[in-house]
């Protein structure tokens, strides 16, 4: 399989602060990504996933190392050239959706198209297609605050695709969604990689995507580590019953000395509203302090 290399990162290091407060958020990471690849980045909270994504997308300069997008070394570019690279070559999808409140669905989708020269008419046609494809037709002229979370993220995906960037970077795109919408968003991203040949780097805690990903990168303390699948530590979300990996789950809370892990914000909130209800249904099923974690499912 001789596919075109879309993204190439060499020995990326990013440190924050200095002296004894120095944090090595990204520690000597190299990776390359071919067209159409869907790569998962997983790892515990604070392991450097967001920092890595920011560097790859030209939002943050690495302390050392370089990033090539489509063969162009973006680490060598000066500050004024980076916005154009971001607009043209990278599609960003955020956990917080980040739609522009004042613009309608269609205007949000078309926003990046105005940042690059030419082809606005064509982009406008493409926006129509994306709206159809992502089932946003009836919401075309709606303002973001009237949309559901799933709809917002679909708008954000369309916005990331409008300029046909070779690279899409998504940082926990389902983190704020319920599991059904989350599933849907994951399937859309998967289809985009496979049908359109776009390369996607997806930071997620959702183990369901592991099956469809081409590769999984495991990040710990800023560095890439091998992770065998038996290193999963499956527990059940006490609210929806979905399996979550205790090691990578970002959403957790403790109740009466026991820790509980959740697949989504919504489950966590429901749990917090009435812990007793879910604890009762879940006697000892979740790993507490005593039962050192792993239960096999």
């Amino acid at each position, binding site marked *: 399989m001789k596919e075109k290399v879309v993204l190439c990162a060499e020995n990326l290091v990013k440190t924050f602060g200095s002296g004894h407060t120095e944090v090595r958020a990204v520690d000597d990471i190299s990776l390359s990504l071919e067209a159409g690849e869907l790569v998962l980045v997983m790892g515990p909270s604070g392991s450097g996933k*967001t920092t890595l*994504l*920011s560097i790859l*997308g030209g*939002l*943050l300069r690495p302390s050392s190392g370089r990033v090539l997008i489509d063969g162009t070394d973006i680490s060598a570019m000066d500050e*004024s050239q980076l*916005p*154009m*690279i*971001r*607009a*043209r070559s990278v599609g*960003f999808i*955020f*956990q*917080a959706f*980040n739609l*522009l*409140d*004042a*613009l309608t669905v269609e*205007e949000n989708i078309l*926003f*990046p198209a*105005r*940042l*690059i020269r030419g082809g606005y008419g064509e982009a406008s046609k493409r926006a129509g297609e994306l709206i159809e494809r992502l089932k946003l037709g009836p919401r075309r002229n709606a303002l973001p605050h009237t949309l559901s979370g799933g709809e917002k993220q679909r708008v954000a995906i369309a*916005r990331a695709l409008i300029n046909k960037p070779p690279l899409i970077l998504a*940082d926990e795109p389902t*983190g*704020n969604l319920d599991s059904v919408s989350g599933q849907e968003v994951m399937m859309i991203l998967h289809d985009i990689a496979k049908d359109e040949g776009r390369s996607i780097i997806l930071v997620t805690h959702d183990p369901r995507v592991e099956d469809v990903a081409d590769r999984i990168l495991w990040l710990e303390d800023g560095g890439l580590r091998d992770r065998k699948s038996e290193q999963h530590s499956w527990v059940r979300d006490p609210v929806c019953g979905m399996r979550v990996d205790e090691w990578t789950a970002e959403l957790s809370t403790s109740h009466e000395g026991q820790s509980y892990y959740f697949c989504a914000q919504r489950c966590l909130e429901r749990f917090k509203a009435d812990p007793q209800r879910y604890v009762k249904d879940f006697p000892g099923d979740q790993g507490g302090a005593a039962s050192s974690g792993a239960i096999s499912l």
Partner: protein
Amino acid sequence: MLRWMIKSLFLEPLTLLVAIASAASAFLLIIMFEGIFAGESEQIVAYVRNVKADVWVMQRGVSNMHMATSYLPDWKVRQVSELPGVAGVESILYLNTVVEVADQRWFSYVVGLDVPSEYAGPWAMAEGRDQPAAGEVVVPEVFAHMSQLGIGGTLRVTDREFTIVGLSKGTFSMANSVIFVNKVDLEDIMSSFDITSFMLVKAEPDTTPEQVAAIIEGAVEHVSALPASQFLKNDKRLAMQMGTETIALMTFIGGALAVLLVAFTIYSQVARQRRELAVVKALGVTNRAIYTSVVVQAIGITLASVAVATMIAMALLPALSNLIPAVTMTLTLVSVAKITILGLFVAVIAAYLPARQVARLDPASAFQT
């Protein structure tokens, strides 16, 4: 980009409205102040502007009327009247003094008229006679409004009582009003006789004021003769000079106030939009494009404020002049143009701080939740 910013502004129409209204009041302050100043300056030269003289003749070296003193012997009036090119001469005696009306002291020109006077007296009357005899005075209508003094009332000028026989229009000003008495009384007050302060000369139809002035200066010793237009210009310059510093200060204060208000609006708009601005930067909007939109926003808000202020001023000025006759205000195109230019400066200065704020926004923060 700009479309988005403007739409964002309109997302909070009330905030926008308050911003425009408050900046407009700052501009209104400037317009009003300039209006009052312009109106008052016009009033200071009201007498010189309105009497129908072609050439003014006065003591040599004197070149204007406001705050000036000029004395000429009476016989020179006859001498001037016999010169070629001179169609007629009227003379006035003139004193700067303070007149007390209803416990308020008004600085006034007291014009002593050689009655009957054809064109040196009041140019517009509201009521009564315009030719005061001995012991009589013609005062601005506004005096009467202020003090309930009407025709037949009495008024003190220096140490003498006068009976009001006429109320004139357009003769009041906060800086100096014009009142008319008989020349005989003024001579008596000044204890000097057979003198005159200014000659108001009419030129023959075929001679220009300049020619007549030259003829007079050539033939009569120790006098200055100036065409009325030149004389008016000299007085105006003097009147303006007295207020320029005040007006400059007020313009500065009003302008600074407007800067603060517009800057605050833009600044809080940018602060409220920090997250979205980081997002658009992440999506590939350049700092320069954001600056431009911030400046355009500031200009838009400022120009809207100037427009609102001008419209309010246009609506308010005539009403205000009627309401407070003591204040003369005029709104000139020049002052509106001045305000607009000031507004553009205001906008650019106001945009500076927010623009810096935007430049420092980290696009990577778009990833933060």
